[in-house]
C-alpha cells in the first residue's frame, strides 16, 4: 500500500469512524445513566434511516403494508435528516416508556432490561419489514448539485474523497460539537453528568431523574437515527436488518472506548473506523470480524477500555 492510498484509507476510515462515534454515544449516554446496554439502539438506527427516506417524500417498494405509498410532501435532504433524527429520538422515548421504565420502577434485575430491549429490537425490525418489505432503499438525489468526489490533497499530492464521506464527516462533527456544548455548557447537561455520577444524590439535589432519563433516551435515539441515515447515505439502506451488524459493531466501539465514557466512544469510534478501512482488499471478507476481534482483545486485556474508569465493588 503506497502512502497516498494509505492516507486516503485513513481519511475514509475517519468519516465512517465519526458515524460509529455518534452511534456509540447513544449506547454510552444510556449506559452512563442506567448502567445497561440498550439493544434496541440498533433498531432505532434502522428506523431513523427509514424515517429520513419517508420524509424525503420517496416511495416505498412493492412489498409490505405500505407498498407503493409515499408522503404527500418531500423535504430537502438536510431537513429530512434532522426530521428523521427527531422522530428516532421520539422512538427512543417510547422505548424507554414501554420497555425500561416499568422494569426500573420495580427495581428489576438489569439482565431483564437487557432482555426486554432485545425484545423491542426484534419487534421493531420486523415491524419495519412488515410495513415496507425487505428491499434496499437509497435516498433519491440526496446530494444533488455536488460533484461525486472532492480532491482534498495539498500541493501536488491528490487525496480524492467521495463527497458523501465528506458530508458524513461534517455532519457527524457538527453533531459531536453540539453534544459537547449540551453536556458541558447547559443545565440539562450538567444534570445528566450528576445523574451519571450518582442518581440518588442527584435526585436529593432536586434533579428530576425520570425526566432526565427521558431526555437521555431522546438524545440517544436522535444520535442513532442520524447515524442510520448517514450510513444509509453512504451505502444504501440494505433492508430492515441493516442496523443489526452495524449495531453489534457499535458495541465494540463502546467496549474499546470504555463503557460509559463519552470521550471514549469518540476515540473508539474513530479508531475502529480507521482499522476497518485499513483491512487490505484481499482480506475484505474478514472486515466484519475486525471490530469483534478488537472487542474480545479489549475485554481480555483492558476491560475498562481505553478511557473508561475502573469501578471498585463495594458491599
Amino acid at each position, binding site marked *: 500500500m503506497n502512502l497516498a492510498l494509505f492516507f486516503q484509507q485513513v481519511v475514509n476510515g475517519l468519516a465512517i469512524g465519526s458515524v460509529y462515534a455518534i452511534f456509540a454515544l447513544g449506547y454510552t449516554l444510556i449506559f452512563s445513566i442506567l448502567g*445497561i*446496554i440498550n439493544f434496541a439502539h440498533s433498531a432505532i438506527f434502522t428506523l431513523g434511516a427509514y424515517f429520513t427516506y419517508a420524509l424525503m417524500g420517496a416511495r416505498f417498494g412493492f412489498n409490505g*403494508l405500505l407498498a407503493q405509498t409515499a408522503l404527500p410532501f418531500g423535504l430537502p435532504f438536510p431537513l429530512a435528516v434532522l426530521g428523521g433524527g427527531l422522530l428516532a429520538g421520539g422512538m427512543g422515548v417510547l422505548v424507554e416508556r*414501554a*420497555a425500561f421504565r*416499568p*422494569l426500573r420502577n420495580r427495581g*428489576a*434485575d*438489569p*439482565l*431483564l*432490561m*437487557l*432482555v*426486554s430491549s*432485545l*425484545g*423491542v*429490537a*426484534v*419487534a*421493531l*425490525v*420486523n*415491524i419495519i*419489514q*412488515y410495513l415496507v418489505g425487505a428491499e434496499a432503499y437509497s435516498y433519491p438525489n440526496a446530494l444533488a448539485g455536488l460533484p461525486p468526489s472532492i480532491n482534498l490533497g495539498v500541493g501536488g499530492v491528490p487525496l480524492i474523497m467521495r463527497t458523501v464521506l465528506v458530508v458524513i464527516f461534517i455532519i457527524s462533527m457538527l453533531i459531536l460539537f453540539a453534544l459537547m456544548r449540551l453536556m458541558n455548557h447547559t443545565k440539562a447537561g450538567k444534570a445528566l453528568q450528576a445523574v451519571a455520577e450518582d442518581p440518588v444524590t442527584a435526585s436529593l439535589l432536586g434533579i428530576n431523574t425520570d425526566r432526565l432519563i427521558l431526555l437521555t433516551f431522546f438524545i440517544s435515539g436522535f444520535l442513532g437515527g442520524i447515524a442510520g441515515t448517514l450510513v444509509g447515505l453512504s451505502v444504501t439502506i440494505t433492508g430492515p436488518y441493516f442496523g*443489526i*451488524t452495524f449495531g*453489534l459493531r457499535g*458495541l*465494540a466501539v463502546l*467496549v474499546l472506548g470504555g*463503557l460509559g465514557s463519552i470521550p471514549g466512544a469518540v476515540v473508539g469510534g474513530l479508531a475502529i473506523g480507521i482499522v476497518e478501512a485499513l483491512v487490505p482488499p484481499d482480506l475484505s*471478507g*474478514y472486515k*466484519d*470480524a475486525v471490530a*469483534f*476481534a478488537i*472487542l*474480545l482483545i479489549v*475485554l*481480555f486485556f483492558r*476491560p475498562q477500555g481505553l478511557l473508561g474508569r475502573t469501578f471498585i*465493588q463495594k*458491599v
Partner: protein
Amino acid sequence: MDSFFNQYGFLIVSMTFSALLALSLYLPLMAGQLSLASPAFYAIGGYIAAVLSTQIFPVESGAPFPLERLLLEMLIAAAVSGVLALLVGLPALRLRGVYLALATIALVEIVRVLSLNLEITGKAIGIFGIPQPFATKLDYLWISGVLLLVSAFFVYRLEHSRMGRAFAALREDELAAGAMGINPTTTKLLAFVLGAMLAGVVGAVSAHFLNTWNARQGTFDASILILAYVIIGGSRTFLGPIAGGLLLTALPEVLRALAGVPGLPPLAVSFLQDGRLIIYGVLIVLSTLFFPQGLITPALLRRWNRKGRA
C-alpha cells in the same frame, strides 16, 4: 396418527433441538451469566459433523450413515466446544455484568464471518449432502429425543446438587456466594462450558438432520430466538426452557393454522402469517414485564405438586 407423525416429523424434531438449545443457554443462566454463545457452538458442532461425515469418513452414496460414527461426531463436537468455551470463558468470566454477553456476541459474529470465508466450511455456499443415518426425519427423534431426556434429567439432578446450589447462590449474589466459599470464576466457567458442550452436540446432530450446513445456522438472530425460549418459557427451573423451546418452535405452525380460520379479515391473516417475529419480540417484552421468571416458575410447580398429592 401415522400420517400426523410423518407430516410433522420435521417440526417435532426441530422442537426438540430448540428445547436442547434453550437448555444450553439456561445452564450458564443458572449461575447468573447471560451467554448468547449457543449459536456459535451449535455452528461449530455442525461444521465438525459436516466435515467429518463428508470428507474424513464418507460412506458410498445410498448406504445409511453408521450411527456409531454420528455418536463419535457428537463426542468430538462436545469436546471441541468445551475447550473453546474454556478459552473464551476464562478471561470473560473474571468480569461481572454485561461483559460475558458482549464477549459471546463477538464470538458468534467471529464464527459466522470465519465460516463465510474459510475453505473448509465451504465459504458462503456451505457444505452439502451430509449423509443420513435414518430413513425419515422423524427417526432423528431416537437421537434428539433421547438427548433431550438425558439432558433434562442431568439438569434436573444438577439443580439439586451441591454444584447447582452454588450456581443459584452466584445468581442471587456473587459477592455473598464468594464469601461462602464458592469460587465464582470456576463455578461460572463450569456452567458456561456445560452449555457450550450441549450446543455443540446439538449442532452435530442438526447438521445431519438438515442435510446441509452454512453460515446462516449460527447468527445473532438465533441467539435472540434461543434467549426468547428461555425468558418466555421460564428461567428458574429446567422445565421452563424446555417448554419454551418446544412451544415457540411450534408457534409458527399454530399461527399458520389460525390464519386458515375462515372469516378472518385479510389484515389479520397476513399478520398471523408474516408477523411471527413481531409477536416473538412483543412476547419477550411482555414476559419481562409481567412474568419476570417466565411462564413455568418454581412456585407454579409446587402448586401442581400439591394438587397432585391432594
